């Protein structure tokens, strides 16, 4: 500990250089912490335990195909199934084509939707009642409402894309939940619009089973039931469904890991270069210290500690920025995007903090050990003559 002062002073020997190097570590750590947390969030069930006994039935060939509404009754009759709501992803245009105006628009069966299915959402009973009673109404997640500043009674127009109708919906209120990126309206209202599939088909069935233990049985019963029909199904847990949604972005996880490794390697080289430069400038000083009786092990320890200290400082700053600035900022920024379901778990966890700490130490050690060993091996007389 009595050597800390010496190490600390040497870290800040050339301030600009240290600030630049530390800055690069900060940026890399922010990036890695944010990406790791995002990955973790995407691997977790966004609605906690309650969502774990919900299923999504989609067409076996994918979301682009419709399912006949006749299937609803047969699914409802399967033992263990509590509630089933047909839903259509409307995908309409609100205001204009700009991506920031895009949000999830889903039809549902209002009679059961908030009471029996999406029961981890919180909604004022009066709003829920009004939603059920008003066929052209819609409710939306609080984040979405905040974004568009919808007021009760306000009308919005949604111009259909693959369903060629325009909806005129009236806002009744907001719900709160882990995913506040969607708006919900009545299946019946969409049917009134007399599009080609009205009263005939749906996009998916969203359903809940009484007990999570029933999930495998219900899943296979549904898929077997329609296996040889015109519309074979593929039943997924809510989590799988959301993950499959994300997969449309490609194998993003593997890519993120690779990019993280590469930038870590790059920053290690940057730190190594800084430490090596700083050690080279000090050949005489190091020899003087050796003359005073410091042994090669001391020198090795000092240079290595400098590298680790610099990298830990950068890491610490990076983690703080990620936790208090970037992650909260991104959560706000993505609240109304398709990433929204995952945001509830998008936070800097203890394990990420630990990983960031280990990464910082690792970068320091990797970057420091070659210059440290080299410095410790300088022969005193050569160092004093500055021939190395």
């Amino acid at each position, binding site marked *: 500990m*009595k*050597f800390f*002062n*010496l190490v600390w*002073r*040497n870290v*800040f*020997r050339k301030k600009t250089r240290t600030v630049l190097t530390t800055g690069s570590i900060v940026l890399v750590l922010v990036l890695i912490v944010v990406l790791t947390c995002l990955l973790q969030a995407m691997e977790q069930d966004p609605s906690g335990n309650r969502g774990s006994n919900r299923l999504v039935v989609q067409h076996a060939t994918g979301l682009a195909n419709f399912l006949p509404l006749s299937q609803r009754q047969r699914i409802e009759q399967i033992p263990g199934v509590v509630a089933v709501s047909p839903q259509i992803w409307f995908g309409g245009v609100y205001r204009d084509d700009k991506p920031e105006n895009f949000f999830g628009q889903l039809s549902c069966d209002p009679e059961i939707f908030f009471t029996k299915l999406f029961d981890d959402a919180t909604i004022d009973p009066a709003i829920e009642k009004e939603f059920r009673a008003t066929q052209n109404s819609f409710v939306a997640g609080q984040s979405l409402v905040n974004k568009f500043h919808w007021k009760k009674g306000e009308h919005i127009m949604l111009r259909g894309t693959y369903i060629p109708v325009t909806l005129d919906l009236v806002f009744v209120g907001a719900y709160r939940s882990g995913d506040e990126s969607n708006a919900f309206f009545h299946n019946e209202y969409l049917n009134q619009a007399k599009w080609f599939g009205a009263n005939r088909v749906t996009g998916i069935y969203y359903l809940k089973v009484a007990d999570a233990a029933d999930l495998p049985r219900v899943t296979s019963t549904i898929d077997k039931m329609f296996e040889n029909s015109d519309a074979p199904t593929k039943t997924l847990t809510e989590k799988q469904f959301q993950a499959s949604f994300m997969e449309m972005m490609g194998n993003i996880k593997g890519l993120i890991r690779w990019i993280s490794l590469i930038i870590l390697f790059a920053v290690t080289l940057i730190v190594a270069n800084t430490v090596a430069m700083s050690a080279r400038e000090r050949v*005489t*000083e190091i020899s*003087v*210290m*050796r*003359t*005073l*009786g*410091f*042994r*090669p092990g001391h020198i090795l320890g000092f240079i290595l500690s400098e590298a680790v200290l610099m990298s830990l400082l950068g890491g610490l700053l990076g983690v703080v920025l990620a936790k208090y600035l970037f992650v909260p900022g991104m959560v706000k920024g993505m609240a109304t995007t398709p990433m929204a379901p995952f945001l509830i778990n998008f936070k800097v966890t203890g394990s990420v903090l630990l990983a960031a700490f280990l990464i910082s130490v690792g970068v320091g050690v990797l970057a420091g050990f070659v210059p440290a060993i080299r410095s410790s091996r300088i022969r*005193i*007389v050569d160092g*004093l003559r500055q021939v190395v």
Partner: protein
Amino acid sequence: MAEPLIAIEHVEKVYRRDALEIPVLNDVNLEILQGEFVSLMGPSGSGKTTLLNLIAGIDQPTRGRIVIGGKDIARIGQSELARWRSRTVGFIFQLYNLLPVLTAFENVELPLLLTPLKRAERRRHVETALKIVSLEDRMDHYPRQLSGGQEQRVAIARAIVSDPAILVADEPTGDLDAKSAEEILVLLNRLNAEFGKTIVMVTHDPKAAARAHRMVHLDKGVLHADEQTEAGAARKA
């Protein structure tokens, strides 16, 4: 006659550069008594620094013995040698060689960090050493805030702070103006007379060399004439 503190016996030093062998010291014999002040002179490249480094234990001879205080330092291992150095020798360089990131106080404290001394004891030693070189009012200055002469005095404080028996100085006044050089020489004389330090000083300056008790000359690695100075004669008398 008294046992010499430093006894150099048949010392040879050969440097190797690739396949080339460069003989630098050739059968050097020298005895230095406890409390003596010896100056080492000779042309550039004659091997003065090399001999000084051998005495200070930062290098070892190719052949021969260097017995200091009864211990042959030509034969001991590197880490033991390092420990021996920190206890026995104080080194003063031509270019002072203070660490620029540390204050005068911290520079002087540096050798003490290797001892088990507590913080408060270290402070006491450092303050004493800085007082001896009359720089107690510059403790918190960094080397760049000091003049060359002051830097060299801090370096001397660093050399004496652990109270070594021997001081070696390699052209300690070589980079200083006449006035500062004189101050340093007075200081060395005082350390020798008052504190009993045995001093070996390399110098090009005959006037500086005359401050010692004895002058020895090196030429092409061979030790020559050994002459007593007036100061030496006065001491004997």
